[in-house]
């Protein structure tokens, strides 16, 4: 299948993640210019190192969910030149609900929900000018089936999913649509660390007994960004090998 895309510029939030970088390579191959965000200098270096061979075919920009001023400068630079947004950005916060630090949980929600809403508002307004835009939010199977300790992570993911859903509901008629993907265990970044720490037990509950590769995730995202997936709007799609289907 040959995928077609309505647009040629994509903002990748959390672009310094392994998945973000992997997706950027796929986008470049599809003649889409990715703009990868990073939240600190380590992330920036990571992008520069990994995308060294495609220099000039992407750009990177500082966006810190804890620094609202960085949002202004990002969108000043983007202007109304934005067709796609893929959102990997999400800090982890593991704590039992009853043992959470109250100040920290407020900050966590402010960064991962309120700030994301502000980013979405800006992105949607930029896309509205051209009356087209496609946004893909990378949620997690934890939104449906959290482990103990994932309450805050799941709550922030579910709240973010709701924002994406409503955006697609509200602006679908103006050509702006959204999809949330809920991957299960991924053999990259945080997922890899988890799988390594749990050994074989980690994938016991997954019917396919496999973790997703980052390439699989990137290819799925690419499909959902393409015109072929236009029918999927304001919805959540699981890609977890069946993890959340059973009990």
């Amino acid at each position, binding site marked *: 299948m040959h995928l077609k895309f309505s647009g040629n510029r994509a903002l990748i939030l959390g672009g310094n993640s392994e998945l973000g970088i992997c997706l950027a390579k796929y986008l470049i191959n599809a003649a889409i210019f990715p703009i990868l965000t990073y939240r600190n200098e380590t992330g920036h270096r990571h992008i520069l190192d990994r995308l060294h061979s495609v220099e000039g075919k992407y750009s990177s920009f500082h966006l810190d969910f804890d620094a609202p001023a960085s949002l202004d400068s990002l969108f000043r630079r983007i202007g109304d030149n934005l067709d796609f947004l893929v959102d990997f950005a999400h800090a982890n916060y593991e704590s039992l609900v009853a043992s959470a630090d109250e100040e920290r949980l407020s900050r966590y929600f402010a960064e991962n929900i309120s700030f994301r809403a502000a980013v979405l508002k800006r992105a949607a*307004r930029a896309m*509205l*000018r051209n009356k087209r835009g496609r946004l893909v939010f990378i949620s997690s199977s934890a939104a449906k089936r959290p482990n103990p300790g994932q309450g805050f992570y799941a709550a922030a993911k579910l709240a973010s999913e709701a924002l994406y859903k409503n955006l697609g509901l509200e*602006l679908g*008629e103006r050509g702006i649509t959204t999809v949330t993907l809920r991957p299960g265990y991924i053999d990259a970044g945080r997922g890899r660390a988890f799988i390594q720490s749990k050994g074989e037990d980690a994938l016991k509950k997954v019917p396919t007994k496999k973790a997703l590769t980052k390439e699989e995730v990137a290819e799925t995202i690419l499909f959902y960004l393409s015109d072929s997936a236009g029918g999927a709007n304001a919805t959540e799609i699981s890609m977890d090998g069946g993890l959340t289907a059973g009990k």
Partner: protein
Amino acid sequence: MDIFDGIKEALAEILDIEDREITPDTYIIRELGAESIDLLELAVSLNAKFEIDVNDDEIFLKTLRLHMDAGLKQGKEAAGYLKEKFPSLKKDRLKEIIADLEAGPALKVKDLISYVRLKLETR
């Protein structure tokens, strides 16, 4: 670009009403039938056209009743209190708006003009 012309152009395009006459006294919601998504598009369009930051709540008087209630609770004179919240509108215009609220959303084209003008002056 003349502010009124720019606003007229944006309204005509968004609401698909090229053939209708628009004056500064035209009601945006009551007469032209603008819905919330149209207002959103209008804000985006004015932001691009005039290169100004647009606060949707303020330009479209979305928080008018909220502020009126708050002013009332504090025992303040309505138009005077609203003037602080909607600095682009003159006190006389705010009085008009308050008197006109019963009949529906009071936002007129001239209120948008005032908003854009103030934004351009203070940019």
